[in-house]
Protein backbone atom coordinates (compact mmCIF):
# COMPACT_ATOMS: atom_id res chain seq x y z
CA UNK A 1 0.00 0.00 0.00
CA UNK A 2 2.68 2.40 1.07
CA UNK A 3 4.83 1.26 -1.84
CA UNK A 4 2.17 1.82 -4.46
CA UNK A 5 1.48 5.29 -3.07
CA UNK A 6 5.23 5.94 -3.21
CA UNK A 7 5.38 4.98 -6.86
CA UNK A 8 2.57 7.36 -7.58
CA UNK A 9 4.30 10.25 -5.87
CA UNK A 10 7.73 9.47 -7.23
CA UNK A 11 6.59 9.31 -10.86
CA UNK A 12 4.59 12.33 -11.88
CA UNK A 13 2.85 10.83 -14.91
CA UNK A 14 2.52 13.95 -16.98
CA UNK A 15 5.64 14.66 -19.06
CA UNK A 16 3.67 14.44 -22.33
CA UNK A 17 1.12 17.05 -21.31
CA UNK A 18 3.87 19.28 -19.88
CA UNK A 19 5.75 19.45 -23.16
CA UNK A 20 2.50 19.77 -25.09
CA UNK A 21 1.66 22.69 -22.83
CA UNK A 22 5.05 24.25 -23.46
CA UNK A 23 4.66 23.80 -27.23
CA UNK A 24 1.27 25.52 -27.05
CA UNK A 25 2.90 28.52 -25.38
CA UNK A 26 5.87 28.45 -27.77
CA UNK A 27 3.64 28.32 -30.86
CA UNK A 28 1.79 31.46 -29.88
CA UNK A 29 5.06 33.41 -29.55
CA UNK A 30 5.84 34.89 -32.95
CA UNK A 31 9.36 36.04 -32.06
CA UNK A 32 10.20 32.56 -30.78
CA UNK A 33 8.97 31.02 -34.03
CA UNK A 34 11.10 33.49 -35.98
CA UNK A 35 14.10 32.37 -33.91
CA UNK A 36 13.30 28.73 -34.65
CA UNK A 37 13.16 29.49 -38.38
CA UNK A 38 16.52 31.31 -38.31
CA UNK A 39 18.19 28.48 -36.40
CA UNK A 40 16.67 25.90 -38.78
CA UNK A 41 17.99 27.86 -41.78
CA UNK A 42 21.41 27.99 -40.13
CA UNK A 43 21.44 24.23 -39.70
CA UNK A 44 20.34 23.75 -43.32
CA UNK A 45 23.13 26.11 -44.46
CA UNK A 46 25.75 24.27 -42.40
CA UNK A 47 24.69 20.78 -43.45
CA UNK A 48 23.98 21.65 -47.07
CA UNK A 49 26.86 24.08 -47.67
CA UNK A 50 28.58 21.95 -50.36
CA UNK A 51 25.35 21.73 -52.37
CA UNK A 52 23.98 25.19 -51.67
CA UNK A 53 27.16 27.17 -52.29
CA UNK A 54 27.28 28.53 -55.85
CA UNK A 55 31.08 28.38 -55.95
CA UNK A 56 34.09 26.78 -54.30
CA UNK A 57 34.70 28.90 -51.15
CA UNK A 58 38.47 28.62 -51.62
CA UNK A 59 38.62 29.36 -55.36
CA UNK A 60 40.50 32.61 -55.94
CA UNK A 61 40.07 34.83 -58.96
CA UNK A 62 42.44 37.75 -58.93
CA UNK A 63 40.77 39.60 -61.84
CA UNK A 64 37.53 39.60 -59.91
CA UNK A 65 38.92 40.55 -56.52
CA UNK A 66 36.68 42.83 -54.46
CA UNK A 67 33.86 42.49 -57.03
CA UNK A 68 30.66 44.22 -55.90
CA UNK A 69 27.53 42.17 -55.21
CA UNK A 70 25.91 41.40 -58.56
CA UNK A 71 25.06 38.66 -61.01
CA UNK A 72 28.16 36.50 -60.85
CA UNK A 73 28.79 37.01 -57.11
CA UNK A 74 25.43 37.42 -55.39
CA UNK A 75 27.06 38.92 -52.28
CA UNK A 76 30.23 40.09 -54.00
CA UNK A 77 33.77 38.74 -53.89
CA UNK A 78 36.44 39.23 -51.24
CA UNK A 79 39.99 40.55 -51.53
CA UNK A 80 41.13 37.33 -53.25
CA UNK A 81 38.10 37.16 -55.56
CA UNK A 82 36.48 34.38 -53.53
CA UNK A 83 32.68 34.17 -53.56
CA UNK A 84 31.44 35.71 -50.28
CA UNK A 85 28.06 33.91 -50.34
CA UNK A 86 29.79 30.53 -50.52
CA UNK A 87 32.20 31.50 -47.77
CA UNK A 88 29.33 32.70 -45.55
CA UNK A 89 27.53 29.39 -46.11
CA UNK A 90 30.64 27.38 -45.21
CA UNK A 91 31.31 29.77 -42.33
CA UNK A 92 28.05 28.64 -40.70
CA UNK A 93 29.71 25.25 -40.22
CA UNK A 94 32.51 26.75 -38.13
CA UNK A 95 30.10 28.89 -36.10
CA UNK A 96 27.75 25.99 -35.33
CA UNK A 97 30.53 23.48 -34.73
CA UNK A 98 32.47 25.67 -32.31
CA UNK A 99 29.18 26.72 -30.68
CA UNK A 100 27.82 23.19 -30.21
CA UNK A 101 31.10 21.69 -28.99
CA UNK A 102 31.79 24.53 -26.56
CA UNK A 103 28.23 24.23 -25.22
CA UNK A 104 28.91 20.51 -24.76
CA UNK A 105 32.14 21.25 -22.87
CA UNK A 106 30.52 23.90 -20.67
CA UNK A 107 27.47 21.71 -19.99
CA UNK A 108 29.52 18.61 -19.26
CA UNK A 109 31.85 20.34 -16.81
CA UNK A 110 29.11 22.58 -15.40
CA UNK A 111 26.67 19.72 -14.76
CA UNK A 112 29.27 17.61 -12.96
CA UNK A 113 30.66 20.49 -10.89
CA UNK A 114 27.24 22.02 -10.19
CA UNK A 115 25.69 18.71 -9.07
CA UNK A 116 28.75 17.95 -6.98
CA UNK A 117 28.64 21.34 -5.28
CA UNK A 118 24.90 21.28 -4.76
CA UNK A 119 24.73 17.71 -3.48
CA UNK A 120 27.93 17.31 -1.53
CA UNK A 121 27.80 20.69 0.19
CA UNK A 122 30.45 21.37 2.83
CA UNK A 123 34.02 22.07 1.77
CA UNK A 124 33.54 20.59 -1.72
CA UNK A 125 30.82 23.16 -2.34
CA UNK A 126 32.97 25.98 -0.95
CA UNK A 127 35.96 24.93 -3.05
CA UNK A 128 34.00 24.66 -6.30
CA UNK A 129 32.10 27.87 -5.79
CA UNK A 130 35.25 29.82 -4.90
CA UNK A 131 36.76 28.55 -8.14
CA UNK A 132 33.66 29.68 -10.01
CA UNK A 133 33.90 33.11 -8.41
CA UNK A 134 37.53 33.41 -9.45
CA UNK A 135 36.76 32.52 -13.08
CA UNK A 136 33.81 34.93 -13.11
CA UNK A 137 36.15 37.68 -11.91
CA UNK A 138 37.68 37.75 -15.40
CA UNK A 139 35.72 40.22 -17.51
CA UNK A 140 33.83 38.85 -20.52
CA UNK A 141 36.10 37.60 -23.32
CA UNK A 142 39.33 38.07 -21.34
CA UNK A 143 39.35 34.53 -19.93
CA UNK A 144 38.83 33.13 -23.42
CA UNK A 145 41.57 35.42 -24.77
CA UNK A 146 43.98 34.33 -22.02
CA UNK A 147 43.30 30.62 -22.64
CA UNK A 148 43.56 30.85 -26.41
CA UNK A 149 46.69 33.01 -26.32
CA UNK A 150 48.40 30.35 -24.22
CA UNK A 151 47.09 27.31 -26.12
CA UNK A 152 47.57 28.90 -29.52
CA UNK A 153 44.96 29.64 -32.21
CA UNK A 154 42.88 27.14 -34.18
CA UNK A 155 39.38 25.67 -34.22
CA UNK A 156 39.98 23.17 -31.40
CA UNK A 157 41.64 25.62 -29.02
CA UNK A 158 38.97 28.23 -29.72
CA UNK A 159 36.32 25.67 -28.81
CA UNK A 160 38.12 24.79 -25.58
CA UNK A 161 38.50 28.47 -24.68
CA UNK A 162 34.83 29.24 -25.29
CA UNK A 163 33.81 26.12 -23.36
CA UNK A 164 35.95 27.05 -20.35
CA UNK A 165 34.55 30.57 -20.50
CA UNK A 166 31.00 29.20 -20.23
CA UNK A 167 31.66 26.65 -17.48
CA UNK A 168 31.45 28.86 -14.35
CA UNK A 169 28.03 30.24 -15.27
CA UNK A 170 26.62 26.78 -16.02
CA UNK A 171 28.03 25.48 -12.74
CA UNK A 172 26.33 28.28 -10.88
CA UNK A 173 22.98 27.78 -12.63
CA UNK A 174 23.05 24.00 -12.08
CA UNK A 175 24.06 24.30 -8.43
CA UNK A 176 21.23 26.76 -7.79
CA UNK A 177 18.74 24.44 -9.45
CA UNK A 178 20.07 21.42 -7.53
CA UNK A 179 19.81 23.27 -4.23
CA UNK A 180 16.26 24.38 -5.02
CA UNK A 181 15.28 20.84 -5.99
CA UNK A 182 16.98 19.36 -2.93
CA UNK A 183 14.93 21.55 -0.63
CA UNK A 184 11.68 20.75 -2.44
CA UNK A 185 8.97 18.60 -0.91
CA UNK A 186 8.92 16.05 -3.70
CA UNK A 187 12.57 15.24 -3.13
CA UNK A 188 12.07 14.95 0.64
CA UNK A 189 9.13 12.67 -0.13
CA UNK A 190 11.21 10.51 -2.47
CA UNK A 191 14.01 10.30 0.10
CA UNK A 192 11.56 9.44 2.88
CA UNK A 193 10.25 6.62 0.70
CA UNK A 194 13.75 5.22 0.47
CA UNK A 195 14.98 6.43 -2.92
CA UNK A 196 18.77 6.29 -3.21
CA UNK A 197 20.80 9.46 -3.79
CA UNK A 198 21.53 8.44 -7.39
CA UNK A 199 17.87 7.80 -8.05
CA UNK A 200 16.91 11.16 -6.59
CA UNK A 201 19.57 12.85 -8.70
CA UNK A 202 18.56 11.17 -11.94
CA UNK A 203 14.82 11.02 -11.61
CA UNK A 204 14.03 14.16 -9.68
CA UNK A 205 16.81 16.67 -9.74
CA UNK A 206 18.20 16.29 -13.27
CA UNK A 207 14.75 15.96 -14.78
CA UNK A 208 13.66 19.11 -13.01
CA UNK A 209 16.61 21.21 -14.03
CA UNK A 210 16.28 20.06 -17.66
CA UNK A 211 14.20 23.10 -18.75
CA UNK A 212 16.76 25.47 -17.18
CA UNK A 213 19.60 23.64 -18.89
CA UNK A 214 17.86 23.67 -22.29
CA UNK A 215 17.10 27.39 -22.06
CA UNK A 216 20.58 28.21 -20.84
CA UNK A 217 22.28 26.17 -23.58
CA UNK A 218 20.31 27.93 -26.30
CA UNK A 219 21.21 31.36 -24.97
CA UNK A 220 24.81 30.19 -24.50
CA UNK A 221 24.96 29.19 -28.18
CA UNK A 222 24.31 32.83 -29.08
CA UNK A 223 27.17 33.97 -26.86
CA UNK A 224 29.49 31.19 -28.01
CA UNK A 225 29.01 32.27 -31.64
CA UNK A 226 29.78 35.87 -30.62
CA UNK A 227 32.92 34.91 -28.69
CA UNK A 228 34.22 32.67 -31.47
CA UNK A 229 33.65 35.48 -33.97
CA UNK A 230 35.41 37.96 -31.66
CA UNK A 231 38.44 35.70 -31.12
CA UNK A 232 38.70 35.01 -34.85
CA UNK A 233 38.33 38.73 -35.59
CA UNK A 234 41.30 39.44 -33.31
CA UNK A 235 43.28 36.77 -35.16
CA UNK A 236 43.40 34.51 -32.11
CA UNK A 237 40.69 32.06 -33.10
CA UNK A 238 40.06 30.19 -36.32
CA UNK A 239 42.93 30.68 -38.79
CA UNK A 240 42.80 31.26 -42.56
CA UNK A 241 41.95 29.77 -45.00
CA UNK A 242 39.10 28.23 -42.95
CA UNK A 243 36.07 30.43 -43.61
CA UNK A 244 35.01 31.89 -40.24
CA UNK A 245 32.67 34.86 -40.10
CA UNK A 246 34.78 36.78 -37.60
CA UNK A 247 37.89 36.21 -39.69
CA UNK A 248 36.08 37.40 -42.83
CA UNK A 249 35.06 40.66 -41.13
CA UNK A 250 38.65 41.16 -40.03
CA UNK A 251 40.12 40.59 -43.49
CA UNK A 252 37.67 43.08 -45.00
CA UNK A 253 38.80 45.82 -42.63
CA UNK A 254 41.50 47.07 -44.98
CA UNK A 255 39.00 47.66 -47.80
CA UNK A 256 36.25 49.53 -45.95
CA UNK A 257 36.31 52.49 -48.33
CA UNK A 258 36.63 50.70 -51.67
CA UNK A 259 34.66 47.53 -50.86
CA UNK A 260 32.66 47.79 -47.62
CA UNK A 261 30.70 44.63 -48.48
CA UNK A 262 33.68 42.37 -47.69
CA UNK A 263 33.62 43.23 -43.98
CA UNK A 264 29.93 43.98 -43.49
CA UNK A 265 28.17 40.98 -45.08
CA UNK A 266 29.79 38.26 -42.90
CA UNK A 267 28.96 40.46 -39.88
CA UNK A 268 25.30 40.37 -40.88
CA UNK A 269 25.51 36.57 -40.83
CA UNK A 270 26.91 36.67 -37.27
CA UNK A 271 24.15 39.02 -36.16
CA UNK A 272 21.42 36.90 -37.72
CA UNK A 273 22.72 33.68 -36.18
CA UNK A 274 23.07 35.24 -32.73
CA UNK A 275 19.63 36.87 -33.02
CA UNK A 276 18.12 33.50 -33.96
CA UNK A 277 19.52 31.72 -30.91
CA UNK A 278 18.60 34.64 -28.62
CA UNK A 279 14.98 34.64 -29.84
CA UNK A 280 14.75 30.85 -29.61
CA UNK A 281 16.24 30.89 -26.10
CA UNK A 282 13.86 33.62 -24.90
CA UNK A 283 10.93 31.75 -26.41
CA UNK A 284 11.95 28.44 -24.84
CA UNK A 285 12.34 30.16 -21.47
CA UNK A 286 8.86 31.65 -21.63
CA UNK A 287 7.39 28.36 -22.85
CA UNK A 288 9.21 25.92 -20.57
CA UNK A 289 9.42 27.85 -17.36
CA UNK A 290 8.08 31.40 -17.23
CA UNK A 291 9.47 31.73 -13.71
CA UNK A 292 12.98 31.93 -15.19
CA UNK A 293 12.19 35.29 -16.81
CA UNK A 294 14.72 37.82 -15.59
CA UNK A 295 17.04 35.14 -14.23
CA UNK A 296 18.66 33.73 -17.33
Amino acid at each position, binding site marked *: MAVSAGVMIARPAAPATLSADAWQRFRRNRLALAGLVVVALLVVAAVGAPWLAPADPAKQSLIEKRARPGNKFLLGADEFGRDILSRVLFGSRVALLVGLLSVAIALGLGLVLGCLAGFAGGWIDVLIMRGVEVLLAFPYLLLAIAVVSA*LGPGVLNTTIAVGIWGTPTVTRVVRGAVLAARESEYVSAARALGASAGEVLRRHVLRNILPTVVVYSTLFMANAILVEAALSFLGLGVQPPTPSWGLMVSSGRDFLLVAPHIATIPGLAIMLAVLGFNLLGDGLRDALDPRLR*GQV
Partner: protein
Amino acid sequence: MLTFIARRLLLAIPVLLGVVFVVMLTIELIPGDAVSLMLGEHATPEAVAKLRDYLGLDKPLLVRYVGYVGRVARGDLGRSIQQNRPVVDELADAWPATLELTAAALVIAAAFGIAAGVISAVWPNSAFDALARLGSLFGLSMPVFWTGLVLIVVFALWLPWMPVGGMGSPAHLVLPAVTLALPSLAMVARMTRSSVLDVLREDYVRTARAKGVAERLVVAKHALRNAAIPILTLLGLQAGQLMGGAVLTETVFAWPGLGRLMVKAIFARDYVLLQGAVLIFALAFVVINLAVDLAYGALDPRIARQG
Protein backbone atom coordinates in the same frame (compact mmCIF):
# COMPACT_ATOMS: atom_id res chain seq x y z
CA MET B 1 27.38 48.89 8.26
CA LEU B 2 31.08 48.79 9.21
CA THR B 3 31.07 45.04 9.77
CA PHE B 4 29.26 44.71 6.43
CA ILE B 5 32.04 46.62 4.66
CA ALA B 6 34.78 44.70 6.48
CA ARG B 7 33.13 41.37 5.64
CA ARG B 8 32.86 42.21 1.95
CA LEU B 9 36.49 43.36 1.81
CA LEU B 10 37.67 40.12 3.46
CA LEU B 11 35.59 38.03 1.05
CA ALA B 12 37.30 39.70 -1.90
CA ILE B 13 40.77 38.54 -0.79
CA PRO B 14 40.46 34.83 -1.71
CA VAL B 15 39.00 35.84 -5.09
CA LEU B 16 41.96 38.13 -5.75
CA LEU B 17 44.42 35.39 -4.76
CA GLY B 18 42.61 33.00 -7.09
CA VAL B 19 42.74 35.49 -9.94
CA VAL B 20 46.51 35.87 -9.53
CA PHE B 21 46.82 32.06 -9.55
CA VAL B 22 44.85 31.66 -12.79
CA VAL B 23 46.84 34.45 -14.45
CA MET B 24 50.07 32.72 -13.43
CA LEU B 25 48.76 29.43 -14.83
CA THR B 26 48.29 30.86 -18.34
CA ILE B 27 52.05 30.65 -18.90
CA GLU B 28 51.86 27.04 -17.71
CA LEU B 29 49.46 26.23 -20.55
CA ILE B 30 51.91 27.31 -23.24
CA PRO B 31 53.09 24.19 -25.05
CA GLY B 32 56.88 23.86 -25.20
CA ASP B 33 59.47 26.17 -23.68
CA ALA B 34 57.75 29.43 -22.82
CA VAL B 35 61.00 31.36 -22.43
CA SER B 36 62.48 30.57 -25.83
CA LEU B 37 59.05 31.12 -27.39
CA MET B 38 58.89 34.59 -25.89
CA LEU B 39 62.44 35.71 -26.61
CA GLY B 40 62.89 34.08 -30.01
CA GLU B 41 65.95 32.32 -31.40
CA HIS B 42 68.37 35.22 -31.25
CA ALA B 43 68.06 36.06 -27.57
CA THR B 44 71.22 36.59 -25.55
CA PRO B 45 71.93 33.96 -22.85
CA GLU B 46 71.71 36.70 -20.21
CA ALA B 47 68.22 37.71 -21.30
CA VAL B 48 67.12 34.06 -21.27
CA ALA B 49 68.59 33.54 -17.81
CA LYS B 50 66.96 36.69 -16.49
CA LEU B 51 63.49 35.79 -17.77
CA ARG B 52 63.87 32.21 -16.54
CA ASP B 53 64.76 33.58 -13.15
CA TYR B 54 61.78 35.96 -13.17
CA LEU B 55 59.31 33.27 -14.15
CA GLY B 56 61.07 30.72 -11.92
CA LEU B 57 59.90 27.87 -14.14
CA ASP B 58 62.25 25.37 -12.48
CA LYS B 59 60.75 25.91 -9.03
CA PRO B 60 57.69 24.06 -7.67
CA LEU B 61 54.32 25.62 -8.48
CA LEU B 62 53.50 26.66 -4.92
CA VAL B 63 56.87 28.38 -4.37
CA ARG B 64 56.48 30.23 -7.63
CA TYR B 65 52.93 31.25 -6.69
CA VAL B 66 53.99 32.69 -3.35
CA GLY B 67 56.80 34.59 -5.06
CA TYR B 68 54.45 35.88 -7.77
CA VAL B 69 51.85 37.06 -5.24
CA GLY B 70 54.60 38.87 -3.34
CA ARG B 71 55.86 40.64 -6.46
CA VAL B 72 52.33 41.58 -7.58
CA ALA B 73 51.61 42.96 -4.11
CA ARG B 74 54.73 45.15 -4.38
CA GLY B 75 53.65 46.32 -7.84
CA ASP B 76 56.37 44.43 -9.73
CA LEU B 77 54.83 42.82 -12.81
CA GLY B 78 58.12 42.15 -14.58
CA ARG B 79 59.54 43.77 -17.73
CA SER B 80 57.88 43.74 -21.12
CA ILE B 81 59.89 41.87 -23.73
CA GLN B 82 59.26 44.14 -26.73
CA GLN B 83 59.88 47.52 -25.09
CA ASN B 84 62.04 46.23 -22.24
CA ARG B 85 60.21 48.54 -19.85
CA PRO B 86 58.54 47.71 -16.55
CA VAL B 87 55.09 46.25 -17.35
CA VAL B 88 53.61 48.54 -14.71
CA ASP B 89 54.78 51.58 -16.69
CA GLU B 90 53.29 50.28 -19.93
CA LEU B 91 49.98 49.59 -18.20
CA ALA B 92 50.05 53.04 -16.56
CA ASP B 93 50.49 54.64 -20.00
CA ALA B 94 47.54 52.76 -21.50
CA TRP B 95 44.90 52.63 -18.79
CA PRO B 96 43.63 56.25 -18.93
CA ALA B 97 42.56 55.72 -22.56
CA THR B 98 40.64 52.58 -21.63
CA LEU B 99 39.09 54.25 -18.61
CA GLU B 100 37.92 57.17 -20.77
CA LEU B 101 36.37 54.81 -23.34
CA THR B 102 34.65 52.45 -20.89
CA ALA B 103 33.42 55.25 -18.62
CA ALA B 104 31.90 57.09 -21.60
CA ALA B 105 30.27 53.87 -22.78
CA LEU B 106 28.92 53.09 -19.31
CA VAL B 107 27.39 56.56 -19.03
CA ILE B 108 25.76 56.22 -22.47
CA ALA B 109 24.47 52.72 -21.67
CA ALA B 110 23.10 53.73 -18.26
CA ALA B 111 21.51 57.02 -19.34
CA PHE B 112 19.82 55.83 -22.53
CA GLY B 113 19.17 52.29 -21.27
CA ILE B 114 17.42 53.38 -18.07
CA ALA B 115 15.44 56.08 -19.90
CA ALA B 116 14.27 53.67 -22.60
CA GLY B 117 13.46 50.97 -20.03
CA VAL B 118 11.37 53.32 -17.87
CA ILE B 119 9.41 54.66 -20.86
CA SER B 120 8.79 51.07 -22.01
CA ALA B 121 7.58 50.05 -18.57
CA VAL B 122 5.31 53.06 -18.09
CA TRP B 123 3.66 52.52 -21.50
CA PRO B 124 4.00 48.77 -22.03
CA ASN B 125 3.01 47.45 -25.48
CA SER B 126 3.07 50.95 -26.94
CA ALA B 127 4.79 51.67 -30.25
CA PHE B 128 7.86 52.92 -28.36
CA ASP B 129 7.96 49.76 -26.25
CA ALA B 130 7.78 47.52 -29.32
CA LEU B 131 10.52 49.48 -31.04
CA ALA B 132 12.75 49.55 -27.95
CA ARG B 133 12.37 45.82 -27.37
CA LEU B 134 13.14 44.99 -30.99
CA GLY B 135 16.08 47.40 -30.91
CA SER B 136 17.50 45.83 -27.78
CA LEU B 137 17.24 42.36 -29.34
CA PHE B 138 19.38 43.58 -32.21
CA GLY B 139 21.72 45.43 -29.85
CA LEU B 140 22.37 42.19 -27.99
CA SER B 141 23.03 40.27 -31.19
CA MET B 142 25.38 42.61 -33.04
CA PRO B 143 29.07 41.78 -32.66
CA VAL B 144 30.80 44.87 -31.24
CA PHE B 145 33.65 44.84 -33.77
CA TRP B 146 31.19 44.70 -36.66
CA THR B 147 29.03 47.55 -35.30
CA GLY B 148 32.21 49.60 -35.07
CA LEU B 149 33.14 48.93 -38.70
CA VAL B 150 29.61 49.75 -39.91
CA LEU B 151 29.67 53.03 -37.98
CA ILE B 152 33.06 53.84 -39.50
CA VAL B 153 31.77 53.18 -43.02
CA VAL B 154 28.64 55.30 -42.50
CA PHE B 155 29.82 58.16 -40.25
CA ALA B 156 33.49 58.45 -41.13
CA LEU B 157 33.79 57.37 -44.77
CA TRP B 158 30.45 58.03 -46.48
CA LEU B 159 29.50 61.02 -44.32
CA PRO B 160 32.83 62.45 -43.22
CA TRP B 161 31.53 63.67 -39.85
CA MET B 162 33.73 61.67 -37.51
CA PRO B 163 37.38 60.62 -37.47
CA VAL B 164 38.07 57.01 -38.55
CA GLY B 165 40.17 56.18 -35.51
CA GLY B 166 42.75 57.32 -33.03
CA MET B 167 42.37 59.44 -29.96
CA GLY B 168 42.51 63.14 -29.25
CA SER B 169 39.51 65.43 -29.64
CA PRO B 170 36.09 64.64 -28.10
CA ALA B 171 34.91 63.77 -31.63
CA HIS B 172 37.32 60.82 -31.59
CA LEU B 173 35.46 59.41 -28.61
CA VAL B 174 31.94 59.42 -30.09
CA LEU B 175 32.01 56.40 -32.42
CA PRO B 176 34.04 54.05 -30.19
CA ALA B 177 31.97 54.91 -27.10
CA VAL B 178 28.65 54.39 -28.91
CA THR B 179 29.92 51.12 -30.42
CA LEU B 180 31.01 49.79 -27.06
CA ALA B 181 27.85 50.99 -25.30
CA LEU B 182 25.25 49.40 -27.61
CA PRO B 183 25.11 45.81 -26.21
CA SER B 184 25.12 47.10 -22.62
CA LEU B 185 22.51 49.72 -23.47
CA ALA B 186 20.28 46.94 -24.78
CA MET B 187 20.77 44.85 -21.62
CA VAL B 188 20.11 47.81 -19.32
CA ALA B 189 16.94 48.75 -21.23
CA ARG B 190 15.61 45.18 -20.98
CA MET B 191 16.42 44.85 -17.31
CA THR B 192 15.02 48.29 -16.38
CA ARG B 193 11.79 47.54 -18.22
CA SER B 194 11.19 44.26 -16.42
CA SER B 195 12.19 45.50 -12.95
CA VAL B 196 10.11 48.69 -13.18
CA LEU B 197 7.15 46.67 -14.51
CA ASP B 198 7.49 44.33 -11.51
CA VAL B 199 7.60 47.19 -9.03
CA LEU B 200 4.63 48.95 -10.63
CA ARG B 201 2.55 45.85 -9.78
CA GLU B 202 3.40 46.10 -6.06
CA ASP B 203 0.85 46.94 -3.40
CA TYR B 204 2.67 50.04 -2.21
CA VAL B 205 2.51 51.49 -5.71
CA ARG B 206 -1.24 50.87 -5.79
CA THR B 207 -1.49 52.55 -2.38
CA ALA B 208 0.52 55.54 -3.56
CA ARG B 209 -1.68 55.91 -6.63
CA ALA B 210 -4.83 55.48 -4.54
CA LYS B 211 -3.88 58.27 -2.19
CA GLY B 212 -3.42 60.52 -5.19
CA VAL B 213 0.35 60.73 -5.68
CA ALA B 214 1.13 62.07 -9.14
CA GLU B 215 2.10 59.32 -11.59
CA ARG B 216 5.40 61.08 -12.28
CA LEU B 217 6.33 60.87 -8.60
CA VAL B 218 5.14 57.25 -8.35
CA VAL B 219 7.54 56.30 -11.13
CA ALA B 220 10.44 58.44 -9.92
CA LYS B 221 10.20 57.81 -6.19
CA HIS B 222 8.62 54.39 -5.77
CA ALA B 223 9.27 52.45 -8.93
CA LEU B 224 12.71 53.60 -9.98
CA ARG B 225 14.18 53.63 -6.49
CA ASN B 226 13.01 50.09 -5.79
CA ALA B 227 14.12 48.86 -9.17
CA ALA B 228 17.58 50.33 -8.50
CA ILE B 229 19.17 47.19 -7.03
CA PRO B 230 18.74 44.85 -10.01
CA ILE B 231 19.73 47.69 -12.36
CA LEU B 232 22.83 48.44 -10.31
CA THR B 233 23.80 44.75 -10.24
CA LEU B 234 23.51 44.64 -13.99
CA LEU B 235 25.59 47.80 -14.41
CA GLY B 236 28.35 46.21 -12.31
CA LEU B 237 28.30 43.11 -14.48
CA GLN B 238 28.20 45.25 -17.61
CA ALA B 239 31.46 46.88 -16.52
CA GLY B 240 33.05 43.48 -17.23
CA GLN B 241 31.27 43.25 -20.55
CA LEU B 242 32.59 46.71 -21.41
CA MET B 243 36.18 45.81 -20.54
CA GLY B 244 36.03 42.74 -22.78
CA GLY B 245 34.32 44.78 -25.49
CA ALA B 246 37.01 47.44 -25.12
CA VAL B 247 39.58 44.96 -26.44
CA LEU B 248 37.57 44.72 -29.66
CA THR B 249 36.58 48.38 -29.88
CA GLU B 250 40.14 49.57 -29.31
CA THR B 251 41.35 47.24 -32.06
CA VAL B 252 38.73 48.56 -34.51
CA PHE B 253 39.28 52.25 -33.74
CA ALA B 254 43.05 52.18 -33.10
CA TRP B 255 42.35 53.45 -29.58
CA PRO B 256 45.61 53.38 -27.60
CA GLY B 257 44.33 51.60 -24.49
CA LEU B 258 44.90 48.43 -22.49
CA GLY B 259 42.93 46.24 -24.89
CA ARG B 260 45.07 47.16 -27.85
CA LEU B 261 48.22 46.78 -25.76
CA MET B 262 47.02 43.31 -24.82
CA VAL B 263 46.36 42.21 -28.40
CA LYS B 264 49.77 43.55 -29.43
CA ALA B 265 51.36 41.65 -26.53
CA ILE B 266 49.74 38.41 -27.68
CA PHE B 267 51.08 38.75 -31.21
CA ALA B 268 54.54 39.66 -29.92
CA ARG B 269 54.34 36.58 -27.64
CA ASP B 270 55.01 38.97 -24.78
CA TYR B 271 53.30 36.84 -22.15
CA VAL B 272 54.66 38.88 -19.23
CA LEU B 273 52.93 42.00 -20.57
CA LEU B 274 49.81 39.96 -21.39
CA GLN B 275 49.68 38.63 -17.83
CA GLY B 276 49.93 42.16 -16.48
CA ALA B 277 47.11 43.42 -18.72
CA VAL B 278 44.79 40.50 -17.88
CA LEU B 279 45.55 40.96 -14.20
CA ILE B 280 44.71 44.68 -14.30
CA PHE B 281 41.39 44.01 -16.07
CA ALA B 282 40.42 41.33 -13.56
CA LEU B 283 41.46 43.45 -10.56
CA ALA B 284 39.44 46.38 -11.89
CA PHE B 285 36.41 44.12 -12.32
CA VAL B 286 36.71 42.72 -8.78
CA VAL B 287 37.00 46.24 -7.36
CA ILE B 288 33.96 47.45 -9.33
CA ASN B 289 31.83 44.55 -8.14
CA LEU B 290 33.00 45.17 -4.59
CA ALA B 291 31.88 48.79 -4.97
CA VAL B 292 28.50 47.62 -6.29
CA ASP B 293 28.18 45.25 -3.33
CA LEU B 294 28.91 48.09 -0.93
CA ALA B 295 26.42 50.32 -2.74
CA TYR B 296 23.68 47.73 -2.04
CA GLY B 297 24.29 48.23 1.63
CA ALA B 298 23.79 51.95 1.23
CA LEU B 299 20.69 51.55 -0.98
CA ASP B 300 19.01 48.87 1.09
CA PRO B 301 19.81 48.90 4.82
CA ARG B 302 18.37 45.36 5.18
CA ILE B 303 21.30 43.98 3.18
CA ALA B 304 23.84 45.74 5.38
CA ARG B 305 22.21 44.38 8.52
CA GLN B 306 22.26 40.81 7.24
CA GLY B 307 25.94 41.19 6.45
